[in-house]
């Protein structure tokens, strides 16, 4: 039986992934139950990836990219934000908690911020309990 929640982090190569690296190098604390997936830009994240993570048992999903205006590809993160807005709306229509999804802007130099955000999110998810999608019944 799993006790610690599972958190998936989609991290932009140019900023948040570098920030995670920096956090590690600076010996800052990062939750051990965070599994990171490096993407080339936050806009690479098809909301279906996030849904897939939930269906496969993730309790929380973090998408982190460059601050607005700082995307390596100029505008990728604005598109990412719209896609997540759409995803959130669709999840809400089904009463599936969108609070398990977080979008954060973390630049390459913000190792400290990376550590804080991920720890805070891990704490939040732990309190929220297991993802109900995982509890989808086999028989009613």
């Amino acid at each position, binding site marked *: *039986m799993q006790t610690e929640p599972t958190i998936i982090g989609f991290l932009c190569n140019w900023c948040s992934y570098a920030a995670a690296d920096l956090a590690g190098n600076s010996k800052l604390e990062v939750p051990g139950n965070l599994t990171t997936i490096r993407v080339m830009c936050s806009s690479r994240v*098809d*909301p*279906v990836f996030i*849904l*897939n993570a939930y*269906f*496969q*048992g993730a309790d929380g999903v973090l998408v982190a990219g460059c*601050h*607005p*205006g700082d995307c390596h590809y100029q*505008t990728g*993160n*604005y*598109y990412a*934000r*719209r*896609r*997540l*807005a*759409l*995803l*959130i*709306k*669709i999840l*809400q*229509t*089904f*009463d*599936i908690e969108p609070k398990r999804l*977080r*979008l*954060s*802007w973390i630049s390459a130099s913000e190792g400290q911020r990376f550590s804080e*955000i991920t720890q805070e999110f891990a704490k939040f998810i732990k309190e929220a309990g297991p993802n*109900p*999608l*995982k*509890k*989808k*019944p*086999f028989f*009613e």
Partner: protein
Amino acid sequence: MKALKLSQSPDNAIGSLLKYLFEQNKISAAFVLCKNNSRDYFYGLITDKNLLEKITPTTPIMPSSAGKMLSKLTMLEPLTSPIAVVLRPCEMRAFYELIKLEQARPDNILFISFTCKGVISIKESKDGFEEKIEAYQKNPATELTLPGLRQCCQICENFVPENADIILPLIEKNDLNNTTFLIKTEKAEDFVQGFEAETVEEELNDTEISKIKEKRARKKAEVFANITPDKLGMKGLIDIFGRCLNCHACGRACPICYCNLCYFDSADSEVGPKAYEAETETKGAYRLPANTIFYHIGRMIHISLSCIGCGMCTDVCPVSIPVGTIFTRVAESAQEVFKYIPGRNIEEKIPILTFKINEFEEIGEE
């Protein structure tokens, strides 16, 4: 606006117009619904004007979405010579969405459409279909209880083909002996120039149209009242999609689902021990086919902004899941976020293909 009147049935009048366009070399082909027999309706691209007697453009059946079929014809290169296309409003809106998705091109097409009473399920297209059609034709458009009428049509409020070049006001009149062509665009004027018919001034009948709209809106509210978040949730989703075969016919028939290599058909969707063990560990069992609800929500994420509520998906579902009704409901709330109406305006971008700098600031954590 300028209108042309003929004392012929709508199908015959469309036939006469197409014949004229052929004779004047104004079109090289007509894309229109054809009938082989009561079990076999299909869209055809006709170049021989003698085959026009096989057309049946207003028969209430949608064997496939004309929007999707037209995208097949125009995806790789634009049409080189003009064709006339006769299609239903939602099919035209689907075609517009496909243009925006770069799956189709609008060049060299004359759009002919009509105010739409809806279509009868493909499954009814068998011996005895003619009687159903007759009942359908006699009924006024406000009558939503026709047997076999798609539920998506019963709740469709966008049955006026706003963007067509030529519009036939069919459902407000429900007249099988006389037909009017409303000549809506300059392009259409050029095409019909010289066509023999009584010329009059006529507009769409807004009073009748709003009556039908109201009736359908009420029906929609009724249907949607059962598809609210509190009634859905995971349990509701299992109730609705539980018997889904995962055949993906709904997506194949959907005009908006255009990917030839669908993610949900890829090897990523196969389920080996790694995938099922996580579930068997907590539940002691694993349900197959797997990933059905994942597929449906995934498809909603991909297409809901462009879903035009045609009901093709419901029509082809072998296990009678009301796919289109659920999708239309979700689409409405997704489209509402961006105040977007699919197929309305060819210049308007699909919301996820554009953005504003200052928006949804509550979502991204600063």
